[in-house]
């Protein structure tokens, strides 16, 4: 497989899983890392993910809403 095809494939996989908001994906990874850190230290960590999901959803929608208002015809 040549480089261009590999790049197209990787770009397709990225678009498919991550979509148009990579910050939300980074947020999920960071929240999972924090959960693992707390759990590894013996601290209760189940609450991290629900809070992270709520915050990421609101943040992501808020950004998209502002973008939609900047480009009303888009």
């Amino acid at each position, binding site marked *: 497989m040549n480089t261009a095809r590999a790049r197209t494939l990787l770009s397709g996989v990225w678009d*498919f899983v991550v979509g148009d908001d990579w910050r939300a994906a980074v947020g999920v990874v960071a929240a*999972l890392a924090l959960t693992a850190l707390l*759990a590894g230290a013996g601290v209760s960590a189940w609450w991290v993910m629900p809070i992270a999901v709520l915050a990421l959803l609101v943040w992501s929608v808020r950004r998209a809403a502002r973008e939609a208002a900047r480009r009303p015809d888009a």
Partner: protein
Amino acid sequence: MSGPELGLALSVFLACAVEAVEALTIVLAVGTTRSWSSAMSGVGAAMFALAVLVLALGPALTSLPIDVLRLLVGGLLLVFGLQWLRKAVLRRAGLKAKHDELQTYAEQTAAARAAGKRPARVDAYSFTLAFKGVLLEGLEVVFIVLTFGANQHRVGLAAAAAGLAVLAVVALGVAARAPLASVPENTMKFAVGVMLSSFGTFWGAEGAGAHWPGGDAALLAIIPGVLLAALATASIAAPDDRRAWPLRRPTPGGLTRRP
């Protein structure tokens, strides 16, 4: 059937039904305007490719250690689910166009007619469009079948739920002989986004080493919690007088105002 298994079956069924409705519209458009036999060949080839993917990746995923699997798949499912949920919330808030199968059908039909004369035997246009439509819509279903199925070691149950959804949609499509415009597609997408995000949250945290209070029963709190959060976010993000986040919009004079 346990609670998580019921959630698995329901999530996969809903996700697959939504994608099948979209694929059906494309197949109907090329089938009715050009060639049914070529369109159905494209559908068959795409279904075969999707089945091969499930058969190849399913056993590979289920052979991973459960904690690694839950962390990896939970994280992926959550990233994927948040993408679905974000789009669903934006559609509900009126900030993103809703799916309209009748409009898609009209566009696809016009494009199929404009694509020129079809040859006597195999119509490459019908085959390719049906193949691409089913494959692309089906990839999302394969992802959901594999992630949900592998996490609970029930790829078979997930695949059966997906198959049942396809059969139901095809039966409805044959009965209606038209795009399934009356299916509450946008509501179903909202529900799928909630389920994917909820299960991704649950499995991701477990894979990272957290222990949920009440074990599997925690899902009974997570799913309604995510649903309420999504509904509230959609309500807050809704435009005009209902919008809680003030937006700066350009006016004809070049100044901006706060609605």
